[in-house]
């Protein structure tokens, strides 16, 4: 049986957090990146020392900065990618500024709420108000992924060859094999917001005030955190678990967007 081994708060409002809306982790550099939406910036923090700093807000246009960064990921070249929901585009961080990823054609994103990158460096975006998941290929052409029929796509993530989608409309976590294009429902009957997966294929997702694990083998959702379990931690009541990222096997970082708090969670396998 899986249960939470520990939860520790690693960043808070005292560290300047204001609506921490998205998380990304670089396992090579051991740096955690956090989208600090209200402050319109990205915070970079070392996962071990928790020393942190703010990245440049400059978007490369004269005198302009990020307007409303929402979602974050890291590409295969270790560049940060983020979505800005005022500019409705993707930015890539290079040379201390954010460069717009200019897409070919007429496609216009509308509230790009989540972003992920596959092993070929193809970018996937959860385009909420356009009610679809899109991919931006290496030639910057845009394609709608028709195999994922979700009209309210929330969080997405990629682990290996699998694209996970939290679909609020159907209340499901969907998984699509990027090699063969086959999409299926992993679990359903929930109100999922954020989704992530660790390197051994365990998936994790949040509802507003809960966290679940879906083990790779069983493919059954198990509740890890709810308000009753949270009371034992002594932390302020959970408000909204808007972001989640795996930083190791059964090791997660999650953010409470409203409480301006980021937590590390370790899960262990306990004999019943």
């Amino acid at each position, binding site marked *: 049986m899986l249960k939470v081994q520990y939860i520790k708060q690693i960043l808070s409002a005292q560290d300047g957090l204001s609506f921490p809306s998205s998380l990304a982790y670089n396992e090579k550099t051991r740096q955690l990146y956090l989208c600090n939406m209200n402050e319109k910036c990205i915070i970079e923090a070392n996962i071990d020392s928790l020393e942190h700093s703010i990245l440049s807000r400059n978007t490369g246009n004269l005198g302009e900065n990020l307007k409303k960064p929402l979602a974050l990921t890291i590409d295969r070249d270790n560049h940060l990618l983020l979505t800005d929901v005022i500019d409705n585009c993707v930015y890539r961080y290079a040379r201390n500024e954010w460069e717009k990823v200019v897409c070919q054609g007429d496609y216009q994103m509308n509230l790009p709420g989540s972003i992920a990158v596959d092993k070929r460096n193809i970018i996937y975006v959860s385009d909420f108000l356009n009610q679809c998941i899109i991919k931006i290929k290496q030639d910057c052409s845009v394609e709608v992924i028709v195999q994922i029929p979700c009209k309210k796509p929330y969080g997405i993530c990629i682990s290996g060859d699998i694209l996970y989608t939290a679909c609020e409309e159907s209340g499901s976590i969907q998984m699509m094999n990027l090699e063969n294009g086959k999409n299926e429902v992993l679990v359903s009957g929930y*109100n999922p917001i954020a989704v992530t997966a660790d390197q051994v294929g365990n998936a994790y997702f949040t509802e*507003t*005030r*809960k966290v679940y694990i879906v083990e790779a083998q069983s493919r059954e959702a198990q509740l890890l955190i709810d*308000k009753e379990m949270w009371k034992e931690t002594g932390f302020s*009541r959970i*408000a*909204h678990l808007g972001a989640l990222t795996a930083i190791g096997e059964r090791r997660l970082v999650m953010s409470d*967007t*409203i409480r301006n708090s980021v937590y590390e969670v370790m899960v262990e396998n306990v004999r019943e």
Partner: protein
Amino acid sequence: MENKNIEESVKNIIVSRMKEQEKIDKLSYDTPLLSLGIDSILALSILVEIEDEFDIEISDSDLNMDKIKDIASFAQLVREYVTNA
């Protein structure tokens, strides 16, 4: 707690989050929150402050914009939880 107190408290919390005086002046109990520029995240933030104020905990199933579309519906939701607490 009296109905009027709950509605006043909810209104005060919402007003404290609004920036535009013009919209505050026009605010009534049935003004749609969306028309005030209060999006879902801000509405949730307001709801959390209301939970803390009244020492209640709204269930996940009630955490949606349909139930908190204006001050009156917000207050109604709070009243249900205060009454059942």
